[in-house]
């Protein structure tokens, strides 16, 4: 009698658990519904993302090529300016020699002295043109840095596209752009006319020279 009571208790307990499970299941059904709806809505979204990535990746080679074109164009333009500067420098030197000969011939003439001073000023101006032209090297290093970043983005987008391809969401064409293997640039290259970096370099060089001199003195004293 005692044993059959225990069996009934067990059956009622299990029925209670089953009821709880059904109640829980009823509560879970709308949530599962929402998850399914969400997944349903996500598929076109993922396809859009896939299209966007594909589109962006296909534009990268063009962007990289355009950046390379800018670097090449500025280099050509800078070379042309330097050619003109060289020609001007030769003409100025010629002019200076002729003015000097005239001064020797006609003595210390006021107008000739003014002319020579002006020639000297033009000469300095022509020499100084080379300073801003160094911006070509600085900007080309900055552009190399941009191209390097583009290369990293292309690699990551490419990897994502491969993922999509593996999941059969969309057929993806192979988009490749050959970046130069050996790129050496300073991503921090700046065109600054403040001399701040040069002053820093000077102080560090002087510090090192002082230390070197001190160690030489110490060595001398050690010998004596």
């Amino acid at each position: 009698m005692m044993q059959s009571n225990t069996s009934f208790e067990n059956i009622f307990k299990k029925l209670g658990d089953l009821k709880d499970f059904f109640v829980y299941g009823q509560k879970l059904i709308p949530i599962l519904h929402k998850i399914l709806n969400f997944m349903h809505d996500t598929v076109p979204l993922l396809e859009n993302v896939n299209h966007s990535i594909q589109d962006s990746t296909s534009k990268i080679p063009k962007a990289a090529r355009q950046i390379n074109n800018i670097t090449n164009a500025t280099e050509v333009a800078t070379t042309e300016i330097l050619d003109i500067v060289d020609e001007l420098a030769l003409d100025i030197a010629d002019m200076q020699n002729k003015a000097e000969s005239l001064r020797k011939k006609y003595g210390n003439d006021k107008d000739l002295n003014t002319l020579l001073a002006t020639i000297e000023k033009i000469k300095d101006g022509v020499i100084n043109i080379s300073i801003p032209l160094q911006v070509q090297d600085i900007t080309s290093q900055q552009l190399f840095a941009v191209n390097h970043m583009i290369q990293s983005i292309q690699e990551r987008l490419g990897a994502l596209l491969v993922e999509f391809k593996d999941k059969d969401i969309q057929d993806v064409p192979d988009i490749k752009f050959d970046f130069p293997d050996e790129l050496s640039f300073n991503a921090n290259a700046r065109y600054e006319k403040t001399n701040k970096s040069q002053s820093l370099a000077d102080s560090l060089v002087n510090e090192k020279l002082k230390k070197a001199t001190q160690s030489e003195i110490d060595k001398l004293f050690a010998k004596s």
Partner: protein
Amino acid sequence: MALKFLVVDDSVTMRRIVANSLKTIGHDLYVEAGDGREALTKLISDDSINFVITDWNMPEVSGLELVKAIRSNEKFGSIPILMVTTRGLKEDIIEALAAKVNNYVVKPFTPQILKEKIEQIVSSS
């Protein structure tokens, strides 16, 4: 003794600007190299080179690697080296000095700065 410079830079424009600056300050003797490897070849083949002006960022063998290679060479290990670069950060300058460059110029530079540094190196060596 007349100075014969080896101007090392991968940028044709920069090599020309350095060369023009050298001419402006009265130094007409120079040869050029496009990277560290070419520079080492020129140093080996031309005994008359007695001063190196080098950029840092170059393909193949960089300026810093060139400095280290020169300093570790018995034949031309003591040749004066001036680094001319866009790298102006403290750690860069310290790294170059640790590699034993004699002086350091940050681009953009004037012919006057180049003259000062060359004279400073020549007078201290």
